[in-house]
């Protein structure tokens, strides 16, 4: 049963990703991509990685995609032709509605499997306890390096986003 669920989820992922990369409006692409990431999180759970599945939803679908949406809306990159309409048309939001309903159905199927005896639970999976011990024991140095990298990224983003640096003004006049 979990095997069938794997193929259904894989189909949903491919459809949602294909729709995401072919959209003209970046906001629609981000919405389809959130669908794809939710399906990928369920797939991670089926493959025995519940913690990674949770982080996939929190970090990718939650933080990174919202950052994309924020930048798109800040720079007003979405095409403005739909402003005259009240909202998106049926043809625009029916596919994403169907994908979301399929995802909810898959989730309910997974929960139903969990209730019965060890059908939906993968026979091998990483408990958060083992995960934490390995992450902060064997890979402690890598955690430090990655935390430094995140700090540098924050500093770099702050530097790039600074409004009125003098060298940016000269570059603008030169181009």
């Amino acid at each position, binding site marked *: 049963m979990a095997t069938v669920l794997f193929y259904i989820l894989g189909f949903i992922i491919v459809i949602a990703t294909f729709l995401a990369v072919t959209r003209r409006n970046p906001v629609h692409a981000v919405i389809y991509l959130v669908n794809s990431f939710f399906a990928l999180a369920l797939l991670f759970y*089926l493959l025995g990685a519940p913690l990674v599945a949770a982080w996939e939803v929190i970090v990718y679908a939650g933080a990174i995609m919202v950052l994309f949406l924020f930048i798109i809306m800040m720079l007003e990159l979405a095409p403005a032709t739909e402003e005259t309409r009240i909202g998106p048309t049926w043809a625009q939001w029916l596919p994403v509605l169907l994908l979301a309903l399929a995802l909810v159905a898959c989730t309910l199927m997974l929960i139903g499997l969990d209730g019965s005896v060890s059908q939906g639970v993968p026979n091998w999976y990483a408990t958060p306890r083992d995960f934490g011990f*390995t*992450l902060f024991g064997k890979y402690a140095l890598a955690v430090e390096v990655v935390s430094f990298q995140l700090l540098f990224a924050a500093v770099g983003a702050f530097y790039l986003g600074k409004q009125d640096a003098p060298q940016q003004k000269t570059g603008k006049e030169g181009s």
Partner: protein
Amino acid sequence: MIVPLGHVLFLSTILFVLGFGCVLARRNLIMVLIGVEIMLNAVGLTLVGASAFWQQLDGQIMVIFLMAVTSAEVSISLAMVVYLNRRKGTVDVRAFDEMSG
């Protein structure tokens, strides 16, 4: 393992090709970054699949590092999108094809 490893690799290959095509074909800078995201997710699926196949934790830990690298990459590149948009007033990649500009 619920499915053979080859099927997981096939799915992640499809995802990677979709993301790669998005990076190559799209001209919007935001869509290029979305393609990079899709490719990174395909790599994450490969790592989790390998982790489930050999029943070792290391693949999943690599995915966590991949997520950290991705969030750093996204913050830098989106800041760069804002910066480039401020300089040239567009996010079309064809406007940024020179190095000294």
